[in-house]
């Protein structure tokens, strides 16, 4: 992105030696600009030229990895302003701030609470990604706290301290876990950049405005530090939305390298956890790469993780389950058979209610290409014909000795035709899944 053939030509040796397979350096440059060849074909590129070409070929918003292993957090590499234009690619990280001046026991209790914040929704596990340890007192206490947190959680870490010594000692302990360092600002970045280069960890750059940010990041990029996350500090929500929108626009539309990184927002409102949650909701929707909060209540985490799942769902590919028979509980050949769609949300909602009913049953998920009951019915993906075909194909008749099928209340109109086509007796179930337990119990 960004560089024209002529821009690239200026970086080449201009000797026309032909070793790249092209007659002239210019011809090679033109192909490079179209990304038809790799720059490695020219053996005479200077290091500076290599770096420029490499950074020009990276995506407009760099992918940043925090942590390592299965639970690592990857953010950035976003390509659009609005999810319908393609999709949002890398779900923003959710993290919690822990103060290092809490007692060891309190820290343990907080971590225990955070570790327990796992929720299963629509077949996916939702969990937060980060714990940030913030320095309040002396160096030793910070290092101790980092050590304690590291020992008690596998979650990714963030080190919040402007004390060089504290960062250095903490990084010696945990740099293999690729923690995120917070933060470099205009006063300390010259000094801290050596630390970042030495330990090769991602870093947050903080400045009050975009020009200030850009100045620091450009400096770091020149030093080869490119695992950067941006923070514009604490300010009013609307101001933040504006800045995050600008950062996204400038990196996507103008290939502004110095801002081509994900952003981090700290949302702290201990006095009003509801407002803290609502502010965090805002940034999950509008372009944050990481949202850090101070509260760790279950309801707050559940709401934020659910919104993240919603916003980062691929709009072109609804979440589906495999179309097949799902036995629920200890089924036998007399168990009821319910049919629904293979849209994950529908299926899991029905599954939850069938489980709650404690009546062992079969759920048949019909292939509606991931549409919900009413949408699929309107689009003719959930009709007497398709349902009859599904019953045939999945061989449910081998699993039960009866021929009674429960259909969703919303498609009651299908009963007659479906009975004719399938030979099954049709029982109209409730419209809403929440009616399933009492329906099954009274069957």
């Amino acid at each position, binding site marked *: 992105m960004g560089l024209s053939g002529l821009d690239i030509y200026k970086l080449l040796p201009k000797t026309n030696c032909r070793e790249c397979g092209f007659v002239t350096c210019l011809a090679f440059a033109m192909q490079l600009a179209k990304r038809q060849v790799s720059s490695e074909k020219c053996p005479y590129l200077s290091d500076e030229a290599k770096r420029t070409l490499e950074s020009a070929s990276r995506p407009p918003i760099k992918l940043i990895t925090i942590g390592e292993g299965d639970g690592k957090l990857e953010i950035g590499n976003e390509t659009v302003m609005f999810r319908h234009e393609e999709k949002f690619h890398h779900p923003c990280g959710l993290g919690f701030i822990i103060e290092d001046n809490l007692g060891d026991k309190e820290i343990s209790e907080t971590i225990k609470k955070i570790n327990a914040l796992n929720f299963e929704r629509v077949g996916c596990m939702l969990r937060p990604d980060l714990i940030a340890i913030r320095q309040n007192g002396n160096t030793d206490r910070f290092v101790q706290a980092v050590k304690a947190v590291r020992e008690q959680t596998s979650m990714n870490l963030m080190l919040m301290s402007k004390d060089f010594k504290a960062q250095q000692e903490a990084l010696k302990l945990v740099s293999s876990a690729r923690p995120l360092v917070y933060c470099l600002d205009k006063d300390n970045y010259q000094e801290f950049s050596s630390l970042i280069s030495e330990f090769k960890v991602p870093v947050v750059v903080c400045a009050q405005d975009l020009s200030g940010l850009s100045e620091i990041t450009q400096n770091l990029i020149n030093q080869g530090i490119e695992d950067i996350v941006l923070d514009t500090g604490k300010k009013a929500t609307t101001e933040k939305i504006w800045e995050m929108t600008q950062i996204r626009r400038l990196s996507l*539309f103008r290939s502004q390298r110095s801002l081509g990184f994900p952003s981090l927002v700290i949302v702290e409102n201990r006095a009003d956890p*509801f407002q803290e949650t609502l502010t965090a909701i805002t940034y999950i*929707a509008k372009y944050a790469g990481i949202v850090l909060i101070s509260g760790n209540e279950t309801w707050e985490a559940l709401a934020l993780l659910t919104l993240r799942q919603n916003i980062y769902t691929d709009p072109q590919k609804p979440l589906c389950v495999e179309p097949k028979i799902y036995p629920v509980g200890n089924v036998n050949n007399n168990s009821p058979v319910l049919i629904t769609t293979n849209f994950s949300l529908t299926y899991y909602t029905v599954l939850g209610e069938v489980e709650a009913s404690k009546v062992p049953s079969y759920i048949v998920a019909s292939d509606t290409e991931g549409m919900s009951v009413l949408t699929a019915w309107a689009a003719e993906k959930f009709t007497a014909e398709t349902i009859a075909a599904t019953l045939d194909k999945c061989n449910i008749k081998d699993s039960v000795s009866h021929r009674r099928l429960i259909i969703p209340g919303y498609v009651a109109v299908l009963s007659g035709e479906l009975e004719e086509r399938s030979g099954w007796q049709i029982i109209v179930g409730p419209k809403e899944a929440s009616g399933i337990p009492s329906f099954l119990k009274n069957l």
Partner: protein
Amino acid sequence: MGIELIYQKWSGKINEVTIGSESKAVKIGGQNSLPFLFKEGGLPNRPRIAFEIWDVPPQDWPDELRRPYGGVLEDVIKWAERCQEEYKAEIICVRLLGAHPDLGNKPSAEEARLVELLLQKVAVPLIILGCGDDQKDNELMPVCCQAARGKRCLVGSAVQDNYRTLTAAVLADGHNIIAESPIDINIAKQLNILISDMGLAQDRIVINPTVGALGYGLEYAYSIMERARLAALSGDKMLAMPFICFVGQESWRAKEAKALETEFPQWGPQRERGIIWEAATAVAFLQSGADILVMRHPESVNCVRDYINVNYQDVDS
């Protein structure tokens, strides 16, 4: 290094719709900018919250939601008064569910008298919703519109297969209309065209994009709203209507909002969970352009109202 910001200039503008009459009238819409981007254009009217009330006592509302309305759920007038006086409602949205053939089949004339009484007792603007049965609504809504003649209510809902009777009534008695489409931008636009073709002014139409709750398909309507808003700001007049989002109705169907802690211990206490579920759904839709949020729990309303007031503090109300 100076950074030159990117300003997007739009040729289109969302229609400004006035709901209610006299001093308590409320204006919505009128923006020529995406939500909260105050530096890029005008957002003259803050989003508004309407309290949803019913003419019959709701059977399926969870206890947490019934508690704030203790003693008034049986009496819609008292219910409305509580919303207005205690909870400082800016708009009240009455759903005439009792007229539904399966839910009491109240005669239309009785409902019209109720609307008249509400208008006497309640000073804030009124949203009037039918019972959801097309046939009954086509008889019910014209008499209710007439009873509220000149009060410039917002009345719903017109749908693609049933919009004529309601549009004619709204037109005759000087109200605004809710045009409801099933999470479909083409149907939304088509319906706006059909309604306008009958002679109703474009600034009398509000789009109901049929939202889902947090965790229950929220993202579908969210993106439909973003697409419609972008189209409107780019000049498509047939999508340049404000949005009304029925957030309360959807949120309180979610298990996460209504399940007791005893059922799902891993979800923690129900009270905060229910309140935040509705409030979070509302705030998510504010990001995609909601102009009216129809909500239920007074605590959720408080949270969202605080959020709006803080973020719109530089705009006159």
